[in-house]
């Protein structure tokens, strides 16, 4: 995975929980341009743990002078976002991967409708800038619980196509109204909690939208769980995975090389064979098919876990 050291040149609180970070090349070199929806993986050397989290880019895709991300502090999470909030200051150098896009706009669309829930607003911030350049029709719906939590408000331009739905103010998003009456050839993009993605899919199905016109960012952070142990078939070694650690992170800490890209169960890169499984794999990825999941012969170590007696991996 190609990556480079970039300097933190700005940080700004967008809300009590969300902070914006800006990264630039230390010598001022231009960074690769990207497309709206792309993410980068940020490496965080936190004591003797090397954390790697993926964040959507929110800066202008056609501006190579810097990259920006907005990070929500997840106090119950595995520490990457807490590390960024607590420890990273302007002037620090962090390793940032080249941008990769698993949530790109479908440029065939006649119109783009974007639906964001909470911090799910981030990929759309860059997409809005791309759409403005391409002069394509769009509409964005941003749902948040309260105005104080709606960090995205600081990132969105003041445009009539942008609709904000604050549930505390009794202004909940009505998906039927959003999706109904859109012109033929419209594509809809959803990013946010799984419940929102499912609700959009159901509403769209009810209204007869073609499946190919629906897109969602299935990205997610590795969920915590109970600690477990895996055995590596080739060496016979065992590796223990902590409650707030992913299997991928535990393998990396044990110097076992596993390929990866998104670290969020979406890209398929980390797919690993299972040679024996006495217990239950907890699949959290969006890559394996249902059949593959139930066969218990493959696991995506970036997000998935295990509960049971023995798990032997083809590693």
């Amino acid at each position, binding site marked *: *995975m*190609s990556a480079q050291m970039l300097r933190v040149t700005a940080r700004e609180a967008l809300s009590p929980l969300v902070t914006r970070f800006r990264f630039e090349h230390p010598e001022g070199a231009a960074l*690769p*341009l*990207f*497309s709206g*929806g*792309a993410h980068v993986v940020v490496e965080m050397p936190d004591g003797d743990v090397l954390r790697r989290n993926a964040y959507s880019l929110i800066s202008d*895709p*056609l501006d190579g002078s810097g990259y920006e991300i907005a990070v929500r502090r997840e106090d119950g999470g595995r520490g990457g976002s807490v590390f960024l909030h607590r420890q990273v200051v302007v002037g620090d150098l962090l390793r940032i*991967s*080249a*941008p*990769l*896009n*698993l949530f*790109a706009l*479908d*440029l*065939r669309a006649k119109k783009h409708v974007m639906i964001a829930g909470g911090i799910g607003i981030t990929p759309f911030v860059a997409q809005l800038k*791309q759409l403005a350049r*391409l002069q394509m029709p769009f509409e964005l719906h941003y749902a948040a619980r309260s105005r104080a939590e709606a960090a995205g408000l600081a990132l969105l331009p003041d445009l009539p196509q942008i609709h904000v739905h604050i549930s505390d103010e009794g202004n909940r998003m009505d998906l039927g109204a959003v999706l109904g009456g859109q012109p033929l050839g419209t594509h809809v993009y959803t990013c946010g909690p799984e419940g929102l993605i499912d609700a959009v899919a159901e509403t769209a199905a009810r209204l007869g939208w073609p499946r*190919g016109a629906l897109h969602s960012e299935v990205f997610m952070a590795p969920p915590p769980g109970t600690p477990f142990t895996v055995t590596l078939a080739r060496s016979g070694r065992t590796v223990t995975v902590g409650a707030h650690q992913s299997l991928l992170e535990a393998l990396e800490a044990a110097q076992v090389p596993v390929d990866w*890209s*998104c670290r969020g169960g979406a*890209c*398929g*890169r980390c*797919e690993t064979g299972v040679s024996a499984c006495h217990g239950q794999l907890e699949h959290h990825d969006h890559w394996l098919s249902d059949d593959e999941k139930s066969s218990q012969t493959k696991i995506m170590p970036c997000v998935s876990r295990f509960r049971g007696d023995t798990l032997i991996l083809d590693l």
Partner: protein
Amino acid sequence: MTLQFHDETFRDDYTFHNSPEGIRRFPFPFDQDSYMYSVNLEPHAGGRAGSPFEKRFDVDEHYVAEMRDREITLRDDPLRCQSLPHMELAGWDFLELVMVSKSEDYPDLFELHRDGDRWHWINRPLGIEQRFTFLDATTLPCGPLEYITRQTQGDHALLDQREGNLWMDAGMITSQADWSLDFDIGMNFFEWHAPVPKANEMGVFQRALKFLLNLQQGAPTRRLNWTMTVNPRLDTSPENYHKWGPEKRTITPATVGSKQYLRVELQTLWRLPRSNAIAFPIRCYLCSLEDIVTVPKWGRRLHRVLRDLPDELAEYKGFAVNRPVIVDYLEQFDDGAETSPGIFPD
């Protein structure tokens, strides 16, 4: 080394030829004495000096003649270049990639001057000078993909990425090994690969696609593919099969060395920045058997590979009818000695 561009043809009188240096730098595709499909992808991050792997877009002694041949093919059949409307941005991305790479890698031959969106491009070998506005197609004589691929050796496909697949939604295809852009346009990775034997069952395409969907900018990758062609013909398209198919019958023990060519494709894969599309240049290199065998290692190895190749592959690649003559010819250059690992001459 200054390049001497050949005045040569890829049709009718077939005056194409490789210089002695051209033969030495030929990308011989076999790193061992047998061949089977595999996910043979490696980083396209330079290579041996003087080899076709060294530069991002190799320019060689055939450049000017190949571009002339493309012009003839396009004049007869404009559908060899197509771009679905949503692919124009990818066309610009690709134009930028080629212009930047060539002007940096071959400053004597190509120059690019940029002042914001106002660009000035100079292509010395083809005698082209163009001022235009980047991302404004009205300032070029044709679309960005067609413009830059009329000046870049090799065929080029642009793949849109969506729904966990790649879609062949644009391309400039005039030197293909018997497949058609007009037929494949709009197809996805599995659909356009459907005619290939064995590889799908081997899981080659599934694994290759998974890799490509995660292809990163600035980390291009490459692979070699090969087939056999009678006469040094670039346009071996299904559309023109009636012109080149019958030429297979001209192969005899007397003509096989000079008329039978090994055709190698250096395929590279590039993630494009603004469009998130993938560019797939397919660069074709031709070398006659009599030139191949001037490198003893290659003569020995090609004999063994072609002799032992599974029938389905020889059939698919279209040289099964001539395989006995080819293998008989090559046998005289195989003394049974061991061959060294890797593709390069000893």
